[in-house]
């Protein structure tokens, strides 16, 4: 993990209110471990917003890193106003990454801006495409950046039925799961979605890895700000209390059974 002044190459709106930014980050990418890791972006040199903003890595290749982000508040607004050539100070790569098994069928589920690490994992699984399924949910078709394509194992859902399967990712997950055996689920998205996936995988006894979000201070384990509640305490280096885990260093990827959503 390093802080690095990265140079923006691209910053474009790729779907309604959803942006993709790509930048040159040789130092950070040389330490990159895999899909699921994130970075902490400093908004500007001033101190109006003292905290960095956490963003999952959506791709990492040839010294370049990309993120996919949605405009929530002031910070993401500021990011969307950056143009190519601008410089950002970034800390990373941070956190752990998804761990997949070659022999499993891997079902990837992304919802909302939970997209980024899931797309990243999808790219990582390139050679295992035959064994992999991608499910992406959004409210409506304007928010989708892929095409619904079950032949290629890509299933899109929309709440309003305007694209792909109508309903949430749960509908698609059930459909896909019925056709496969020995599978593992990888998911990232809003908490309500993760909760539903958690019940589903526990009920069906499928292993699953969830990427969770939490309000971050430092991103490196020194503020104790980013905790989530957990089950199944295993002694980790940083989360030195049984009940909670530090998302920034022991996460953001957790085994579905270990996470308690409050």
């Amino acid at each position: 993990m390093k802080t690095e002044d990265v140079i923006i190459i691209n910053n474009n709106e790729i779907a309604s209110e959803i942006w993709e930014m790509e930048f040159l980050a040789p130092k950070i990418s040389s330490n990159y471990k895999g899909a699921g890791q994130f970075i902490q972006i400093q908004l500007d040199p001033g101190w109006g917003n003292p905290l960095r903003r956490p963003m999952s890595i959506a791709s990492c290749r040839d010294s370049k890193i990309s993120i996919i982000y949605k405009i929530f508040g002031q910070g993401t607004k500021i990011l969307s106003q950056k143009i190519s050539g601008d410089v950002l100070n970034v800390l990373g790569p941070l956190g752990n990454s998804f761990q997949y098994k070659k022999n499993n069928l891997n079902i990837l589920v992304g919802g909302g801006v939970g997209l980024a690490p899931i797309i990243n994992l999808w790219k990582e699984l390139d050679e295992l495409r035959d064994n992999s399924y991608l499910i992406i949910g959004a409210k409506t078709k304007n928010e989708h950046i892929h095409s619904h394509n079950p032949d290629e194992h890509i299933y899109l859902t929309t709440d309003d039925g305007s694209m792909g399967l109508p309903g949430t990712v749960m509908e698609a997950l059930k459909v896909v799961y019925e056709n496969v055996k020995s599978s593992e689920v990888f998911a990232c998205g809003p908490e309500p979605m993760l909760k539903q996936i958690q019940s589903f995988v526990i009920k069906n006894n499928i292993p699953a890895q969830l990427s969770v979000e939490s309000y971050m201070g430092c991103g490196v384990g020194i503020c104790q700000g980013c905790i989530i509640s957990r089950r199944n305490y295993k002694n980790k280096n940083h989360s030195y209390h049984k009940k909670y885990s530090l998302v920034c260093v022991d996460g953001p990827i957790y085994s579905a059974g270990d996470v308690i959503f409050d």
Partner: protein
Amino acid sequence: MDLFIQQEMLSLIDMSIKIGKVLFKNPIITASGTFGYGTEVSSLVNVSKFGGIVTKSITLNPREGNPPPRIVETPSGMLNSIGLANIGVDQYISKKIPLYSTIGTNIIMNIAGTTVNEYIEIIKKVESVSSNIVGYEINISCPNVKRGGMEFGIDCDLTEKLTESLRKITERLLIVKLSPNVTNIASIAQSAEKAGADAVSAINTVVGMSIDIHKQKSKVYTKLSGLSGPAIRPIGIASVHKIFQAIDIPIIGIGGITCGNDVLEYILAGASAVQVGTSNYRDPGIALSMIEEIKLYGEKYIISSISDIVGVVSSNTK
């Protein structure tokens, strides 16, 4: 010997300071709770360059701390309610103290308790083992625990009694960390001085609150939490200014320090050293650049020792 001369030439200003009998290589220390146990980010930052590290508040028993959410950003600041999450003194002794033998900087152990006896017990335990901890910072001012140190921090007599009791059981540095949430911070500082503290540090966080108007609830789990960061810097500087006029022992200034300029404001107001807190979250190495900025200032204004400018603004009558 060669090395010493070389350093002399590079930095004309003598950055070292003394608190009690302890020498600090420079006045820049990391603040409690904002740099973990000092070892978490050693791969990212050369911590041996800091003047010192104050470790996270340690209590007698391990504490899991408060439920999430624990932090939220505010204008030029942040609120936190960590709730003194820590591993407890026994694990601190067995797991952390051994790591400090090679850390290359002064370690100050911050301790918190709910009764005088708890503070005593913690220090006794640490004193009973061998360690290179240079001293204790007594947190009497954490606003985020329901039955916590806060009661000490707002009361002169309690501060005096607590300090007195701890003074009896250690020869190491005893630094009393003051709360800004009081009518008269200088009088609490006087109580600490009277009872034998080697120094006071100020300020801890300011009580604050922030509400999510859509969920209609507090943004951090506990309603009240502690405000830190640049927003409170003027409050910290004013506190140091007031304390400087009231006591003779050194003051360690804390609150919203982001750069060498901010460190110097504190020093000119009366601080002999400073602690950097929230800024570490933006960049765990941020304190290192402050050291360089202060050296440049020293060169520009031909200051031979950082101690020479402690309190010059606060001691002027105008």
